[in-house]
């Protein structure tokens, strides 16, 4: 088996990656997960260690009627990349909730490809990025609905919050639909903290950093809502948010 060549900037999926950092961990081993027909599994990936580079690539196959709940907290590495390919069988359900919290010159990215190959499958992706300093947060997410995959229900909700003018968010939700009867929704927004909300909280006595932390906590919470280990994920995210402010 030949080792794949290091990607270049021309590869769309690596367009915003830190290629020099990636070289240090290349090639990335693909982690295969199969969820058998009718079964439910969940997995939380927590990348919060301070390291030079982390790159993972999950390949998930959901058989008919299977469901998989994946949560990602991507926050520790100078370059942290998590790629996820999910292939959905008939009536399968795939949930992805991910938060990327970065500061300094961190480059964090989540790259997904979700294949609705059979009818009646559902996918839900919720990505929240909070970026301070000169950090870059990227989400590239493709949803491909194959011919005949009628009744597909796919949603992508992608939001990024910039805490400084020097932080960068890249977001590219993408739909490729070859079936007729599908419901595909995607929303994408990059913004700053809502001034009206901050004033409301401060008017009740919270200091400006407390008010910001509370609003960011709420912003990130959506990514982990309903997770099996929600409390742990929220607590880790909260700790990290404190460091970002």
């Amino acid at each position, binding site marked *: 088996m030949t080792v794949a060549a290091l990607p270049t900037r021309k590869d769309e999926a690596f367009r915003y990656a830190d290629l020099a950092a990636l070289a240090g961990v290349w090639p990335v081993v693909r982690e295969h997960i199969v969820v058998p027909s009718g079964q439910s599994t969940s997995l939380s990936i927590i990348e919060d260690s301070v390291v030079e580079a982390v790159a993972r690539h999950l390949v998930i196959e959901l058989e008919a009627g299977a469901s998989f709940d994946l949560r990602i907290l991507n926050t520790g590495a100078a370059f942290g990349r998590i790629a996820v390919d999910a292939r959905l069988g008939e009536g399968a359900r795939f949930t992805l909730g991910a938060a990327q919290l970065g500061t300094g010159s961190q480059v964090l990215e989540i790259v997904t490809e979700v294949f609705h190959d059979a009818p009646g499958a559902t996918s839900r992706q919720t990505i929240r990025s909070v970026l301070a300093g000169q950090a870059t947060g990227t989400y590239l997410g493709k949803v491909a609905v194959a011919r005949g995959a009628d009744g597909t229900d796919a949603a992508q909700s992608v939001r990024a919050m910039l805490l400084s003018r020097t932080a960068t968010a890249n977001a590219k939700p993408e739909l490729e639909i070859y079936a007729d009867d599908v419901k595909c929704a995607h929303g994408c927004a990059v913004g700053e903290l*809502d001034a009206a909300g901050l*004033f409301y*909280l401060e*008017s009740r*006595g*919270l*200091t*400006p950093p407390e008010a910001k932390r509370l609003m960011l*906590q709420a912003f990130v919470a959506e990514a982990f809502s309903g997770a099996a280990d929600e409390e742990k994920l929220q607590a880790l995210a909260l700790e990290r948010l404190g460091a970002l402010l």
Partner: protein
Amino acid sequence: MLQIHNLSATVAGKPILKGLSLSINAGEIHAIMGPNGAGKSTLAYVLGGRPGYEVTGGSVSFTPNPNPAHPELVEGYGAARGASTGSARAGVGGGAVDLLALAPHLRAAAGLFLGFQYPVEIPGVSFVQFLREAANAQRKARGEEPLSGGEFLKLAREKAALLKMDMDMLKRPVNVGFSGGEKKRAEMVQMGILDPSFAVLDETDSGLDIDALRIVGEGINAIMRRPDKGVLLITHYQRLLDTVKPDFVHVLAGGRIVKSGGAELALQLEDEGYEAVAA
């Protein structure tokens, strides 16, 4: 308790308040009525310290009621202010503070409460968490011990019951999915929990049905109708004033107070309209 002197303010460069003066003593409830665009909400936001509402002249002096259980309250809060603003802009003497020199959260810690006309929805943050953090942030700024979880819940339950609000609603995200009336009721629950010296209530009666109006009015009386507290009630309608009887009524038009009187002035306004009365 609250002395507003010749206050002028602009919003986006446009003058809204044009030399407004008003003096409210402890134990008094004042109502401000006035036509749309008169500057009522601007006054509320200026007092609360909302960014974007720029004070261009005048002063506001606030004398919080000294908490007998904590005689150090005013002093401790003064120290917190000095530390936070990094300046020695002291109050104007005798326990009074220069309200406009304080950041919004320190105005709250000093004992000012702003009831919002449009309470903001904060998805993902429960009322209980938010209010406990807010109450304890205020206590910290005043040099008081924080409330424990149990103490806070007891207080919250008591105030929710006062406003006939289901405690379960306070476990929900702040104002999310609340009707207009529920939001206003929740504002009053917050006021009860935070127990301010002075409340500025901006159209707390809008969006309320008749029953809710009475509950909110009775809540205001129960929480704020005390010899050591004051209220500035901004309203469009006389109806709330049937329950919360004002000691004084003022008409705000064109950015200043154009007429003042007793409770009867509100009735006259209702009958004759602003234009006739304020002319």
